[in-house]
């Protein structure tokens, strides 16, 4: 494996007045016990845009993503700040359960509940306090439409979600996350378990979603990153080496390591 100078980085900075931010991290560091898994992660995520996190396996991109809505709380120590609407959501006094309603997440493998399609979405809504039946039905439909799944399931909402195909299940999980009305949506390699057709539908759905949501997505597929994302961050060995507009990263990267990675000369 080639060694790169991990000090040599290019992180694009935005002017928050010009480009409103959906989320921002400052010096985020993650430790698994004594193992330092993520260093100095400082990134700005523009509002209502898709940012892709790319890098080899073990580069720390998933660790970073899972830290953003504190899913790593049980297993890791996360230091640094995560600013959401100027509030540090990595602070200890934050009510993580409430925060996760603002920062939603979809995982690598589809994980619908063992309930009907309707209840997969309605159950968390009810738990969050929505009681009215018409309101529930409306929200279920809206989020299914947003996740581009409505047309495929609208006649059979009472079917078990586990009877859906993998691609449909994943879009259901996105719909479920959207139904909570988050501002930020974290996606951890959402297409890695899907076939190309399902992946296409998923990407289309994401493309439509970015108008309303700040999306941060880990992907192992550079094609996917270049197709869907507006911004890209490149991770290597627990460091963020480069962050810029996707177009720039994939045409004229600033850093040698990034260039090697996207051209396949890496490792």
């Amino acid at each position, binding site marked *: 494996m080639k060694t790169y100078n991990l000090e040599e980085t290019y992180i694009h900075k935005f002017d928050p007045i010009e480009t409103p931010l959906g989320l921002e991290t400052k010096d985020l560091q993650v430790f698994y016990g004594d193992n330092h898994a993520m260093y100095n992660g400082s990134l700005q995520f523009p509002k209502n845009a898709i940012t892709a996190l790319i890098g080899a396996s073990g580069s720390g991109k998933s660790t970073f993503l899972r830290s953003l809505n504190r899913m790593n709380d049980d297993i890791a120590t996360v230091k640094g700040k995560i600013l*959401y*609407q*100027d*509030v540090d*959501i990595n602070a200890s*006094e*934050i*009510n993580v*359960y*409430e*925060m996760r309603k*603002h920062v939603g997440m979809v995982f690598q493998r589809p994980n619908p509940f063992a309930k009907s399609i309707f209840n997969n979405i309605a159950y968390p809504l009810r738990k969050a*306090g929505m009681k009215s039946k018409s309101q529930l039905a409306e929200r279920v439909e809206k989020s299914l439409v947003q996740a581009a799944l409505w047309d495929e399931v609208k006649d059979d909402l009472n079917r078990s979600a586990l009877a859906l195909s993998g691609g449909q299940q994943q879009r259901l999980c996105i719909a479920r996350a959207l139904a909570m009305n988050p501002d930020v949506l974290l996606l951890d390699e959402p297409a890695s378990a899907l076939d190309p057709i399902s992946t296409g539908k998923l990407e289309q759905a994401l493309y439509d979603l970015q108008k309303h949501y700040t999306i941060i997505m880990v992907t192992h597929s550079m094609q996917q990153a270049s197709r869907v994302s507006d911004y890209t961050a490149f991770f290597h060995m627990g460091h963020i080496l480069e962050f810029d507009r996707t177009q720039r990263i994939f045409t004229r990267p600033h850093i040698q390591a990034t260039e090697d990675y996207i051209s396949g000369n890496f490792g």
Partner: protein
Amino acid sequence: MDEIKRQLTKASKATRQDRYGKWIAFICTFLIGLLVVSIFYLVASKGLATFFRGHISLWDFLTHQDWNPGQVSKNGVPSVGALPMIVGSFSVTVLSAILATPFAISMALFMTEIAPKRGQRFLQPVIELLVGIPSVVYGFVGLTIIVPVIRAIFGGTGFGILAGTLVLFVMVLPTITSMYVDSLRAVPRFYREAALALGATRWQSIYKVVLRASIPGLLTAIIFGMARAFGEALAVQMVIGNASLLPHNLISPASTLTSVLTTGIGNTVMGTLPNNALWSLALILLLMSLGFNLLVRLIGRQGRFTK
């Protein structure tokens, strides 16, 4: 900003629920822990009273063979020699484990090595049924079949260690088998494949590789079986004859710790020496059960497959 900050920091229904839930769950767990502590405390305090308040020496208790706590012997102390029961308990336990082990090994090998699919399908329910049959039913069958058969063959009453052993043999067989099956399954597949690839026959691969690799598992399984046999009360009590005498052979009436406990507790008065002496027997049972547990843990620590 203040609005969103307030929203994100104030406790919600979820955090409250979580706090209550955690407490409820903890209390349940704590109750079980408390239960174990109180069992040991109460049985120990009762059982030790024989020695501290009754002034019986522990050595006499363990080695004397006259059990007659209600009466005072020639030298002025009540006769509380638990040796007959201790010998009885250990005899039935060890003998039944020795008898059951070859059968359990065969069952387990059949289910994992010889006919994994068919064996599993037919023998799994066999094991579950043997586990499921209540101990009083084993006792009843022992009483109506085994005891008369022993009587017919060897004479005497038919009650005794042999009858107890035969009943316990069937009762510990499923315990040993199912635990040994688990440890055979844990033997990595490539062990067998390596042996077979070298031209070994199935038996050679079993004997030279699989059995040897699973010895700690077999020991654990046997100890679990012995723990069950040692603690079993009613089935043994029904066939052993309940005579607190040091057994001279396998077919004379004898007794075990558990059998004396089940018959005796109701016939003695709380707080008296005869009653406390019974609690001392219960304490031995408790300590033995703890001992079996420790033994299993020790073996488990050494015999794990390193990944």
